[in-house]
């Protein structure tokens, strides 16, 4: 399968945010049909760089181009019962896809990697963004309600202080975001088995609605294979909430400007 390799290599090595980096030993996978009965597993030390949902690995830290790339969608990151200490594995829902067994330098490094990789998927990021979008809209709404002219009917909304947890819709599902996990293509979510210090038990997040319609993309012409949800709530600062923000900040600025102008008049007769 072709890939825009040059752009990918450029992205891997440029100074866009790196979410994690370090040396790991990567198990060399032998083909199954290379059937010898001596299990000589060998590992090669590589320099790994995590950017977003992409895990690049380089032959050496100074290498100009990555050797390979692992796309972290539809995978789980688990501790691994290898002969090696501090080993963990990236496994994919797709049965045909090979797993990656990686070995860290120590306990802390292993935990840091597992944590970073568990939350690396695009789907996880999208989940968090959608939740924040909702929260922002809620916050805007109640601020707008507070800022409106005081009428008796709005007194109940004014009672709602912004720090009231009732405004934050996701309070009842904290574990969903602690173990970020997603599926890609398959319809069955597994359980994230990554041990989480925060105490959240492994509970898979609800399957995002788009998964069910994605499989039925039309064949024959370029069709925007986007879920309706994605089009309704675009992930961008240009939601209509932003315009509400504008008008809210705009009021504040208008007041400040008036005050400044008053001061100017007094100061410069």
């Amino acid at each position, binding site marked *: 399968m*072709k890939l825009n390799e040059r752009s990918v290599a450029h992205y891997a090595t440029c100074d866009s945010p*790196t979410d994690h980096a370090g040396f790991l030993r990567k198990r060399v996978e032998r083909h199954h049909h290379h059937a010898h009965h001596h299990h000589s597993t060998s590992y090669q030390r590589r320099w790994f760089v995590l950017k977003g949902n992409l895990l690049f690995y380089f032959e050496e830290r100074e290498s100009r181009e990555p050797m390979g790339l692992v796309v972290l969608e539809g995978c789980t990151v688990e501790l691994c019962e290898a002969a090696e200490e501090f080993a963990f594995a990236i496994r994919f829902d797709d049965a045909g896809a090979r797993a990656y067994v990686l070995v860290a330098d120590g306990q802390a490094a292993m935990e840091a990697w597992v944590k970073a990789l568990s939350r690396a998927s*695009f789907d996880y990021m999208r989940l968090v963004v959608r939740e924040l979008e909702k929260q*922002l809209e809620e916050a805007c709404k109640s601020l707008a309600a507070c800022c409106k002219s005081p009428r008796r009917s709005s007194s109940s909304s004014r009672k709602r202080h912004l720090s009231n947890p009732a405004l*934050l819709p996701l309070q009842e599902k904290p574990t969903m975001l602690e173990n970020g996990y997603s599926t890609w293509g398959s319809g069955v979510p597994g359980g994230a088995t990554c041990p989480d210090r925060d105490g*959240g038990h492994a509970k898979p997040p609800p399957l995002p609605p788009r998964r069910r319609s994605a499989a039925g993309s*039309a064949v024959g012409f*370029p069709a*925007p294979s986007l879920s309706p949800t*994605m089009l309704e709530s675009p992930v961008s600062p240009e939601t209509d909430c932003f315009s509400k923000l504008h008008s809210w900040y705009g009021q504040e600025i208008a007041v400040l400007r008036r005050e400044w102008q008053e001061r100017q008049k007094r100061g410069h007769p």
Partner: protein
Amino acid sequence: VLKKRLVKLVVNFLFYFRTDEAEPIGALLLEHCRITKEEENVFSISFIEEPERKYCFECDSEEQCQEWIEALKRASYEFMRRSLIFYRNEIQKMTGKDPLEQYGISEEARFQLGTHKP
């Protein structure tokens, strides 16, 4: 020469298929790219390190073209990261609370502002 392709946007990859095949011919990683409206019904994707090389796509209608442009502009992981940081800051400003704290992810490197190299 334009060839008819099935094009699928999945996370930050744009896959393209021959119309009767199940396996993609190829994919474009959509990071550090620019989406440009070209002539009618046509948009292009180009990448930061090679801006003159354009991958052109012709749509069936202007409306479809606009939909694709909007979708592709938002498709990168980096775009989502910036959105998240934006929302986080706005919520913090409006409510005085960091919305990521309740999920225990406020210290995650990927949600911080600015580049960071460990």
